[in-house]
């Protein structure tokens, strides 16, 4: 009934004000329709999104150049200042890593012979494309980046996006020259993982903070601080064994992960194709994730 009163009272106001009011109502309805379309994963939304990102990406790339030059110059200057102390630190690390190299080589040989004995299929070597991040400042409600490589460069939806240190996210949308990578920390990110050396299963869930948490952990699992997290490959989202991060805080309420990827220093992403064919979307809804428990 209130609406009717409103409509009558509008008749007394100028036509322009009435038009303005209807424009608001119409556009608000349109916005709600867009939310529904996006929420139901309408293909048209994805097409429009990739088309717009594709058309803006070259502009972003050009605008990015001066920023790259400035940040590279600052980094070079900082490197000169820290040269001596860094050198000593690297020497120490190098010695340590050499010892690990010997252990790794020994384990690699042992692993290969055991795989041979068990007749396990050999691991897939991914095809890798490196792409520069051209946009990453999405604000408080999303954690995704745009990279300057698209399906013309062989990028396909679902590829793993890696930094030098570990997994950073997955390719969610692909245009001709650009692609969007949803980071592990995004609220929509769900990654099936193994925790620690006893390979307990869990789902790593982002919440837009820098530290994702673990959900749906195996009931008999024991998790310690510093346990390593790597992808389990279950559900077919990612290849198994990609390094993700470590457990960095444990509480009654949640287990928080610190990803290996350094969010403050993301400049390039390595997009790796492991030819994982399964449907990825199964991982990105809560109900399905519960099913994986």
């Amino acid at each position, binding site marked *: 009934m209130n609406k009717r009163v409103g409509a009558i009272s509008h008749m007394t106001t100028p036509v322009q004000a009435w038009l*303005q009011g209807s*424009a*608001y109502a119409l*556009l*608000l309805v*349109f*916005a*709600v*329709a*867009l*939310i*529904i*379309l*996006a*929420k139901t994963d309408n293909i048209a*939304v994805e097409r*429009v*999104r990739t088309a*717009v*990102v594709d058309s*803006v990406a070259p*502009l*972003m790339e050009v*605008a*990015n150049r001066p*920023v790259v030059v400035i*940040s590279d110059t600052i980094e070079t200057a900082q490197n000169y200042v820290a040269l001596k102390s860094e050198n000593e630190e690297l020497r120490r690390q190098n010695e340590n890593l050499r010892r690990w190299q010997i252990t790794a080589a020994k384990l690699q040989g042992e692993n290969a012979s055991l795989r041979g004995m068990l007749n396990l299929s050999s691991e897939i070597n991914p095809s890798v494309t490196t792409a520069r*991040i*051209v*946009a*990453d*400042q*999405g*604000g*408080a*409600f*999303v*954690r*995704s*980046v*745009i990279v300057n490589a698209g399906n013309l460069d062989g990028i396909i939806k679902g590829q793993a996006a890696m930094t030098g240190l570990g997994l950073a996210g997955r390719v*969610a949308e692909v245009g001709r020259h650009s692609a*969007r990578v*949803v980071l592990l920390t995004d*609220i*929509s990110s*769900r990654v099936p993982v193994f925790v620690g050396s006893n390979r307990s299963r869990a789902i790593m*869930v*982002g*919440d*837009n*903070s820098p530290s994702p948490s673990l959900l749906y952990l195996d009931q008999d699992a024991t998790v310690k601080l510093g346990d390593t997290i790597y992808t389990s490959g279950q559900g077919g989202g990612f290849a198994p064994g990609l390094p993700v991060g470590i457990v960095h805080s444990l509480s009654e309420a949640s287990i928080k992960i610190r990803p290996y990827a350094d*969010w*403050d*220093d*993301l*400049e390039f992403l390595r997009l790796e194709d492991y030819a994982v064919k399964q449907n990825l979307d199964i991982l990105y*809804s*809560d109900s399905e994730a519960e099913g994986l428990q």
Partner: protein
Amino acid sequence: MNPTFWQRIDGLARSACPFTITLLLTIFFLIPLHIPNLSAVVPSVLLISIFYWTLYRPDLMPIWAVFGLAFVHDLLTGVLLGVGPFILLLFCLALNGQRKFLAQTSFSVLWASFFILSSLAFTLKWILIYLLEPGIPDFRPALFQNLTTVAVYPAFSWIFALIQRSLLKS
């Protein structure tokens, strides 16, 4: 005397100024600046620009332009499409409701009003994301992005006023 072709083009370009500037700023503010933790709390220049132009030149920032800008912003940032336009339409509705009061008030009151409206917009956006996405989004980035946006408001407001004085005299 009728305006010549070039005068018309000049007039059109000037009228399109608020829209174009907002669009370019929105795009440039997405570029990685390699500053730690900035990406989550980068000021929402879109909100500031729409506040300013809707208040001072509503004829050059009509409601469909607000919708278009928020639509493009949503597409580029990867936020669930439609959330940005929905919030900004309500933001403009609230702003237009207070137009008479805001048009005559001092700068500090205007800044405080922007703080209130921007806080409401961020809170509503957080609620919408909470309702529409799985899980509970962290509230801290929204809080800090709101604060950085309010903090840079005077600077951008000054720049827009400069543009208004030099390009949009009429």
